[in-house]
């Protein structure tokens, strides 16, 4: 009978090895992991200590910096800068109109085009966005939810036009609609109709795109909207269970799609709680996938995630101090075993980042990766009395929430999550937690450096920030006008009629027709409006 250590050792020996000096600065040799022979090791169920046996000794996390502003050409330029500076993956930020499926010339888009991200109206913009970037080589993440299916169709159409087969494309579509109703609020269609599109993308990628993560189940926005760490953990994993049940209902066997589900967590400023949350997330996911959903493949149970440092922890006052906050948060993500990381820039409480501040944010990751040696030993805090107890506590609080949702859904997490949204349960809990924290700040119970205390220096001249001019909006509208003028209106009308007919039949997968529409330069707004004509639109009941 082999010990856990021996089993781990074999897996470790079979893993690729990254060249590095695996000793301390003073020359003490370091083992890849520490712990008792029969304790849990990284790469072993339930994966508390990491999804892989070798963790960062095989491969560092992907330094994936989120970027997007102005027109597709502007963002393409920033992407190339990121890759030149040593970024190892791309992450696309879309502007508000794109996130809500509106064209740049829509009346509601006024003042918002290219402000918070890049404006994408049609395949033409997608072509500009990734021009000169080898998508067979570089993986791409796209932060898009309500219009995820049409944007993904444009992405695939663009890559295939550039000569890269869809089966070779690697990356992640956020495509996590449930948290939009709960937290981020960029919804278009009602929940059930949106979930049909999620199902369509899961089925499409499971069949045709083996390197693609069909959903990035995201706690980040839930936390940013004000939840506690345990609520972030619980709501996110509950949403994950809902997507699993959705795909199971669609007839997909668990192990055909579960390995392509990925996660996205926040790394906030409470250092140990964040690490405990990430460890608990892996353990809970593995247990539920195995026990409740009958997964057999290890990959279906190994939770992999991207991490972003907490935007809400940044202050407009003394913004340089944000570099320190971000470094600490990023370190929590790394010690929690993240597969991919975005570090926020110091100026993001003021504006989108400048090129310089984004570079410093990337450098922060590089310092952690290459100077600190924290990557040498997997799960370095495993076995700490404190961190283990906090991990257990995170799991306990999350299980309490799962029980409630399971009850809401009478034994279905999918129904429980939708019910929780319809009843404003998630939204109210998040708002309550946000206000509780705010009161702690206001009462002085919690300190924010440069805001509640230590304010000397707040009057210094403001750092230089990125300004997005209105010229981008004008340029983008002109471009859209040209695209509309250059295409065959007959093809557009035909494919939109087909889309409407197929949308009305819930059994049909809409991805092939969305691809066809993309190739005909149908705009995002046209596709979304056509689907909204069938699906209807979601309206939230506002609650304070």
């Amino acid at each position: 009978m082999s010990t856990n250590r021996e089993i781990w050792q074999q897996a470790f020996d079979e893993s690729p090895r990254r060249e590095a000096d695996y000793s301390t600065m003073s020359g003490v040799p370091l083992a890849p992991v520490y712990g008792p022979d029969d304790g849990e090791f990284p790469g072993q169920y339930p994966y508390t200590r990491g999804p892989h046996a070798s963790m960062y000794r095989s491969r560092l996390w992907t330094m994936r910096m989120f970027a997007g502003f102005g027109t597709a050409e502007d963002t393409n330029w920033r992407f190339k800068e990121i890759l030149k500076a040593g970024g190892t993956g791309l992450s696309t930020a879309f502007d508000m109109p794109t996130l809500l499926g509106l064209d740049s010339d829509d009346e509601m888009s006024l003042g918002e085009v290219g402000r918070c991200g890049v404006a994408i109206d049609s395949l033409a913009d997608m072509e500009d966005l990734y021009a000169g970037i080898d998508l067979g080589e570089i993986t791409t993440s796209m932060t898009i939810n309500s219009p995820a299916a049409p944007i993904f169709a444009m992405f695939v159409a663009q890559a295939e036009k550039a000569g890269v087969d869809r089966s070779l494309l690697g990356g992640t579509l956020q495509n996590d609609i449930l948290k939009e109703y709960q937290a981020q609020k960029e919804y278009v269609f009602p929940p059930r109709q949106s979930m049909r599109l999620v199902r369509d993308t899961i089925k499409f990628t499971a069949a045709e795109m083996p390197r693609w993560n069909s959903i990035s189940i995201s706690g980040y926005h839930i936390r940013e909207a004000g939840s506690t760490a345990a609520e972030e953990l619980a709501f996110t994993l509950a949403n994950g269970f809902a997507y699993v049940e959705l795909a199971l209902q669609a007839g997909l066997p668990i192990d055909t799609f579960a390995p392509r589900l990925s996660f996205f967590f926040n790394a906030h400023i409470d250092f140990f709680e964040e690490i405990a949350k990430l460890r608990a997330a892996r353990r809970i996911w593995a247990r539920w996938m195995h026990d409740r959903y009958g997964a057999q493949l290890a990959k279906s149970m190994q939770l992999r995630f991207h991490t972003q440092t907490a935007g809400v922890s940044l202050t407009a006052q003394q913004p340089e101090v944000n570099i320190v906050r971000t470094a600490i948060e990023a370190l929590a993500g790394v010690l929690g075993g993240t597969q991919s990381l975005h570090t926020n820039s110091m100026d993001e409480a003021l504006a989108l980042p400048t090129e310089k501040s984004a570079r410093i944010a990337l450098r922060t990751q590089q310092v952690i990766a290459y100077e600190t040696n924290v990557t040498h030993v997997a799960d370095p805090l495993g076995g700490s009395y404190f961190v283990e107890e906090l991990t257990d506590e995170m799991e306990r609080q999350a299980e309490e929430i799962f029980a409630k949702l399971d009850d809401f859904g009478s034994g279905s997490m999918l129904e429980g999550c939708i019910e929780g949204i319809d009843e404003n349960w998630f939204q109210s809990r998040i708002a309550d937690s946000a206000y509780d924290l705010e009161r702690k700040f206001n009462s002085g119970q919690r300190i924010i450096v440069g805001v509640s205390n230590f304010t000397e220096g707040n009057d210094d001249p403001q750092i230089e920030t990125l300004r997005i001019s209105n010229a981008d909006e004008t340029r983008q509208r002109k471009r859209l006008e040209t695209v509309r003028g250059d295409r065959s209106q007959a093809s557009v009308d035909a494919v939109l009629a087909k889309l409407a007919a197929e949308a009305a039949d819930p059994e049909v997968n809409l991805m092939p027709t969305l691809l066809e529409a993309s190739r005909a330069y149908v705009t995002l707004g046209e596709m979304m409006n056509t689907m909204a004509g069938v699906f209807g639109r979601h309206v939230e009941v506002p609650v304070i």
Partner: protein
Amino acid sequence: MSHRILVAKVGLDGHDRGVKIVARILRDAGFEVIYTGLFQTPQTVAAAAVDEDVDAIGLSMLSGAHMTLAPLVVEAVRSRGAEIPVIVGGIVPADDFAALKAAGVAAVLTPGATAAQVVEAVRNVLAEH
């Protein structure tokens, strides 16, 4: 009688953590607070403000569209013959303060404003009107 405040999200910006916190802060300070919900237009905000006969409007703006949308709200209110002060809160660069004031915005609150500062700003604006 307590003052009535309309807090609003205009445009496509779905970030509602701030607006909900401000709504609760004002409610706890004794104001009567009405929240519009998301995705309003300058016209729907102005109409709600007039219909509800509010004493001030608070706009929460975090997407960078404040220079376009805040002046449109002020105009929409005025075009209805009302004189309801408009306060903007959110991510607003200091460089934009003067232009917003010139466009008729009564006050601007930026990140880090405490509950006490929010309440004080609203009371000051009400006192001036």
